[in-house]
């Protein structure tokens, strides 16, 4: 038992109970030298501390999704593996990180090979208790909100000492909306636990810190005068929004803060989506949850303004229909809504794309939902200040943070947005993306799954007719007068492939959807 768990991330949307024969899986794990236990990790957002400490004691940890828990998948499988209740733990799983199980033939043989490679991929050769690196193992967590505390507890449980720099502002994040509703004291519990853990030091909120990079980490002189060395900084500020009283606009977080504190949010509430960026389906589902809650409990009149009903996530369709039956009005506006806002009194004007009727809403309470949650601006600034090269939009999740720091121990700034929000922003994080592809290739030879990639314009055949510029719903295509061809604005592009289909000269290709291998792929399928 060399204490190395094998982690298989399972996405609840597509994980089918009767697809995986757990007995044979457990047997194949037992035979393997690299892996000694099968850990199927779930969304540990709330339960990170228990998750990590529990892993040590349990033989098998099931981590699926609430759906799997409800339909008894875990109990049934545990009985088949003759494991007593004390020996297994069922916890939440991160939704739609991976599409693991599809209809495949001969899954057992392939899974074992995959698990082997997973072992190396995740745990490599780095010795867990490499003393030399310990000195630089202390981590500064900048932000004591949900994400910051979760991260601190996660690191502490791995034997890493953590300083948490208190920050003011609203502690909770949109990411933990549902949980906060069921358990308003969630944040306070986390803070108490952090206070009791001797490896975590909560610095007073006033402590200012100006970090300077040193070999292998950072030297930070806090306002109290003493300087401490840190291996990494975890930047986890909660998004700073002006308080609703001033701006008249709530973020979802503030709304839940209001509700959690028992204050009423009555009258007409307008949820304004897609104004400055596309709303992720996950965020749309949170909005539906919030809207339903506002209507049911607060008897508020809710209007949702959005470009489209993003119900492409399982389970969202019923929620969406239920909201509509409750009388929540969905207005589909196409062009930007003009918001004449003085001090708190908003007037919303626009055209409803479906009924093409104009609408004017005066003085609503507005929920402004951020679009794609990329790297928090403060993190970029800090990274810039420390002259650190940021690896793209790396926003880590609490669950894999301790692995990142633990496995790599690289000096770096890990920007951690709020748990759910940053998950939306972290769609293509390298570690899980490469993992997904590795599993995907082995497990489903039948269907060809296309990764999303930014399109490429073929300069010779592009007729410079600008059709792509006109049809792109995200304004991601623009004309390049120098090259006299179309050009992709990668930041805005969603890689949906519409331009490639509409292009009259067939000059645009999504990298592995190129016309040649696309045609070959089709032919292979059809023959």
């Amino acid at each position, binding site marked *: 038992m060399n204490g190395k768990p094998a982690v298989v991330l399972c996405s609840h949307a597509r994980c089918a109970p009767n697809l995986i024969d757990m007995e044979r899986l457990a047997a194949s794990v037992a035979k393997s030298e690299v892996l000694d236990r099968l850990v199927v990790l779930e969304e540990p957002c709330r339960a990170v501390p228990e998750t990590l400490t529990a892993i040590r004691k349990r033989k098998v940890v099931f981590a699926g999704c609430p759906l799997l828990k409800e339909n008894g998948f875990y109990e049934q499988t545990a009985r088949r593996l003759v494991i007593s209740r004390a020996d297994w733990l069922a916890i939440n799983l991160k939704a739609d990180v991976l599409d693991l199980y599809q209809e495949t033939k001969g899954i057992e043989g392939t899974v074992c090979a995959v698990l082997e490679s997973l072992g190396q991929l995740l745990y490599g050769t780095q010795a867990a208790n490499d003393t030399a690196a310990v000195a630089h193992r202390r981590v500064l967590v900048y932000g004591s909100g949900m994400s910051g505390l979760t991260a601190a507890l996660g690191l502490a449980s791995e034997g890493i000492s953590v300083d948490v720099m208190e920050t003011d502002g609203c502690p909770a994040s949109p990411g933990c909306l549902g949980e906060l509703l069921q358990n308003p004291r969630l944040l306070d519990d986390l803070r108490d636990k952090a206070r009791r853990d001797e490896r975590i030091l909560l610095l007073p909120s006033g402590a200012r810190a100006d970090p300077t990079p040193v070999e292998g980490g950072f030297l930070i002189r806090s306002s109290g005068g003493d300087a401490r060395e840190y291996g990494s900084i975890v930047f986890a500020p909660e998004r700073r929004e002006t308080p609703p009283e001033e701006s008249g606009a709530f973020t979802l977080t503030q709304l839940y803060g209001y509700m959690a504190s028992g204050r009423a949010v009555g009258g007409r509430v307008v949820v304004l989506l897609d104004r400055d960026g596309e709303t992720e389906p996950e965020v749309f589902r949170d909005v539906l949850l919030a809207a339903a809650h506002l209507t049911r409990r607060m008897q508020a009149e809710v209007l949702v303004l959005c470009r489209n009903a993003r119900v492409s996530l399982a389970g969202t369709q019923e929620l969406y229909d239920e909201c509509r039956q409750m009388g929540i009005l969905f207005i589909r506006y196409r062009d930007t809504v003009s918001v004449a806002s003085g001090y708190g009194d908003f007037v919303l004007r626009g055209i409803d794309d479906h009924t093409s009727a104009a609408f004017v809403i005066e003085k609503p309470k507005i929920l402004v939902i951020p679009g794609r949650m990329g790297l928090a601006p403060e993190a970029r600034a800090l990274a810039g200040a420390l002259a650190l090269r940021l690896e793209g939009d790396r926003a880590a999740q609490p669950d894999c943070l301790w692995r990142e720091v633990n496995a790599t121990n690289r000096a770096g700034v890990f920007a951690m947005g709020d748990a759910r929000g940053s998950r939306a922003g972290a769609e293509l994080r390298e570690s899980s993306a490469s993992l997904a592809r590795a599993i995907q290739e082995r497990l489903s030879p039948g269907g060809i799954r296309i990764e999303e990639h930014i399109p490429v314009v073929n300069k010779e*055949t592009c*007729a410079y*007719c600008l*059709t792509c510029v*006109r*049809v792109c719903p995200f304004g991601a295509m623009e004309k390049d007068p120098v090259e006299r061809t179309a050009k992709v604005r990668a930041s805005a592009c969603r890689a949906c492939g519409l331009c490639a289909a*509409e*292009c*009259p*000269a*067939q000059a645009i290709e999504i990298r592995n959807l190129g016309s040649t291998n696309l045609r070959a792929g089709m032919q292979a399928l059809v023959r």
Partner: protein
Amino acid sequence: MIVAEQKPIQEILAALPEVDNLLVAGCDTCVTVCMAGGDKEARVLCAAIRMSGKKIRNVETVSIERQCDREFLSELSDKVSRADVVLSMACGAGVQMLSDFFPATIVQPALNTLFMGSTEEAGYWLERCLGCGDCSLELTAGICPKTRCSKGLMNGPCGGSVGGKCEVDPKSLDCGWDLIYKRLKSLGRIERLMDIQPPRNWSRAHDGRPRSVIRKDVRL
């Protein structure tokens, strides 16, 4: 640019003789931009012909930059030599140029060439110019009455202009003269409409003779 539309597939198939080798030739300039005869449409048409009942042994498709320049047409020489019939998806000019360049081969059009016009938005092209050879756009604030008015009047609008629409299609066809009136009014030059325009000189249009332009300084 030149705007054209593909002939209905039944017409194309009906006109196609049942030969051994058919070459579908696309054109990558104007007819690509107006989505009538580019590489994309050539591949679709080629697939349709192959799957239709026509007994044509093999159907090949190729697309060149422009079919209205001999230098590009020469690129087709080997493929055309192997083909019994060439179905040209270029505008009328391209089809005729192809026929001139390969006199021994049967060349058939796949498109109906329509007009010189503009791309109003993706998928919407509008006729803007007749090519009358005697432009008077300065009189009508940049809107051509000969093209945009169903009757090509020079002293419009006629009695059938209602709600800014032409009597020929009151739902969707803008009355050219209504547009002219509104723009002249916004430019504050409405009195120009009072001067009576004399009959046009049509001899410079096709009515005069089939036309050509020769620059003696360039063509030695």
